[in-house]
């Protein structure tokens, strides 16, 4: 076990993509948390106070990201928007994953009519293009924090049901689970001991990347001015409020959008790196500094591969 976790850490550390992702995600999560914990005192300027004497300034040392058409500091606005973007995206993914685990486990374990109904529903919801469905719901429900989260959750849960159900189906088809069932193990016992430990890692990996997608969709809703309350700072909304200034002051438009991009990239790089490091089938073919992974952590020398030695 300890060799295994040491090996995994080695793998993650050697992977530039996932290290970049980890650092980026950590920085943004810490910033968002600090902003919430200090009740918005992290921002160097008041993000909403207009100062027309300092309107449309380019990025500088006093205003890291410059100021917008009303002279409000863009850096402060970005910091103020972080908890909203980060918080909603994480909440949406966590709730969807929980719904997915619950429904997917039930459907995969009990099969039959229940499974059929759940999967039909899942397929129908999956047929809707992501942004368009949450757009319609958010527009119907009207702007509020809860409504916009709900509109995203409605679109987000089906893929988790599918993921979990597939994994549970595969696990319950294993011989050891049949034996466990024959020994009169309860549903709860099998789920807790056999199904969940097999399902959770893949859900976790998928969810990491998925937080990025949720953030993209959320900020697109913000860009379209749907679902986010008027007084609430949100990165996509910031972008759309200055797009008409694109040719004159491109930095005002590009900077908040770049922040979204870097955050999303952080989550997806981290998820991608995790997925690859957890993939046992790839292990024999990954080399770190020219050496096969198995040897580094003192495991068995792995089989030869037809690849040239390469650093990951």
């Amino acid at each position, binding site marked *: 076990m300890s060799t295994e976790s040491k090996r995994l850490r080695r793998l993650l550390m050697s992977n530039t993509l996932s290290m970049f992702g980890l650092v980026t995600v950590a920085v943004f999560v810490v910033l968002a948390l600090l902003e919430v914990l200090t009740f918005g005192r992290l921002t160097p300027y008041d993000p909403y106070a207009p100062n027309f004497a300092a309107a449309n300034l380019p990025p500088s040392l006093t205003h890291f990201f410059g100021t917008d058409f009303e002279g409000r500091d863009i850096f402060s606005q970005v910091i103020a928007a972080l908890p909203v973007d980060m918080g909603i995206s994480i909440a949406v993914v966590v709730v969807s994953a929980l719904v997915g685990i619950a429904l997917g486990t039930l459907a995969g374990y009990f099969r039959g009519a229940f499974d059929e109904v759940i999967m039909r529903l899942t397929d129908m919801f999956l047929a809707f293009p992501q942004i368009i*469905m949450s757009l319609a719901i958010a527009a119907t429900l009207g702007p509020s924090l809860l409504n916009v989260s709900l509109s995203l959750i409605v679109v987000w849960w089906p893929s988790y049901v599918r993921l979990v159900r597939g994994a549970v189906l595969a696990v319950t088809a294993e011989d050891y689970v049949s034996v466990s069932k024959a020994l009169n193990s309860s549903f709860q016992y099998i789920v807790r001991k056999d199904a969940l430990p097999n399902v959770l890692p893949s859900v976790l990996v998928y969810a990491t990347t998925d937080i990025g997608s949720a953030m993209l969709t959320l900020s697109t809703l913000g860009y*379209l001015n*749907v679902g986010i309350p008027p007084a609430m700072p949100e990165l996509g909304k910031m972008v759309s409020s200055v*797009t008409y200034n694109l040719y004159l002051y491109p930095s005002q438009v590009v900077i908040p959008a770049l922040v979204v*991009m*870097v955050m*999303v*990239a952080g989550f997806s790089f981290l998820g991608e790196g995790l997925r690859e490091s957890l993939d046992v089938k790839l292990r024999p073919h990954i080399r770190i500094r020219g050496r096969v992974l198995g040897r580094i952590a003192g495991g068995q020398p792995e089989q030869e591969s037809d*690849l040239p030695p390469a650093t990951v």
Partner: protein
Amino acid sequence: MLLGVALIVFFISHVLSPDPALLWAGPRARPETIRAVAAAYHLNDPLPAQLYYYFQGLVTGNFGLDPQTGRPIMSEILFYAPNTLELVLASMVIIIVLGVGLGYLSGMRFGTKVDSAIRLFYLTTWSTPYYLGAVVAILAFASYIPLFPSGGNGGVGFSVAPTTGVFVLDALLQANWLAVESGIDHLILPATTLALLSFGIVPRIMRSSILDTRWSTHVKAARARGLGEGEVRRKHILRNALIDTTTVIATTFGWLFSGTIIVEQIFAWPGIGQFSYSAIISVNYPVLVACVFVFTLGVIVANFLADIIYPLLDPRITLGEGG
């Protein structure tokens, strides 16, 4: 399937909202307007009756009148849809060629610098919001380096009779070469932008299915039988990897349609995406519902096409086996 989707749209548009009439009439409508709208769209009737009218409208292709222009929504959609189709299909070609190509290259060069570079590229473009990508594309290739026009579909100033509604195709059919050139010129930038921002998942799945296949026993067996490397790669690795990739390409349509809302608006492309954007901005609810339905229909058709393509790729799957 289609029935279920229609029911969900009905639920969102008629049941979910506390006061649908207010939504359909717009936020600043006078009370008498709201009452008139409620009567015109049968919003005061009991739900089963509303459901009946809703399905009657769908089956006859009647989405009602656009409250802002007064024209039937269906005819407006028929005007905008071909333009979106043109944009989406052009992007799809780019996605398939680039996505499959890069994914294959990345998988076959697993662990090399080429692999890392390709992954960095598609993960980054995938993480880019549509509004950023489109804006940067316009700034870079239409403003700073003026290679392409920044907006429109190139139809302005040409009198090309709309036979199919797709401008480039119409111009081709009528051998109007200047119009064809203008159309393609206007198409390149938005189509490439849309494609690059949506395609990330295609090379990603292609790469992982290549990795799943290339060290599998059946490929080893093929090599052991003495097949040439080229044939092994083409028939045993590439073809196998394409099966999963086809599914993903079909789901990419969903992202493409979502993307058109932003990309068409920024590039001033006269399609459904821009139509729905203006519907959102001007709180034109009936049009928005119709657009949601059209987009979803597009995704369903794409998935259906993918189901038809499977048996061609995978000899183990045959159609009509009660699947």
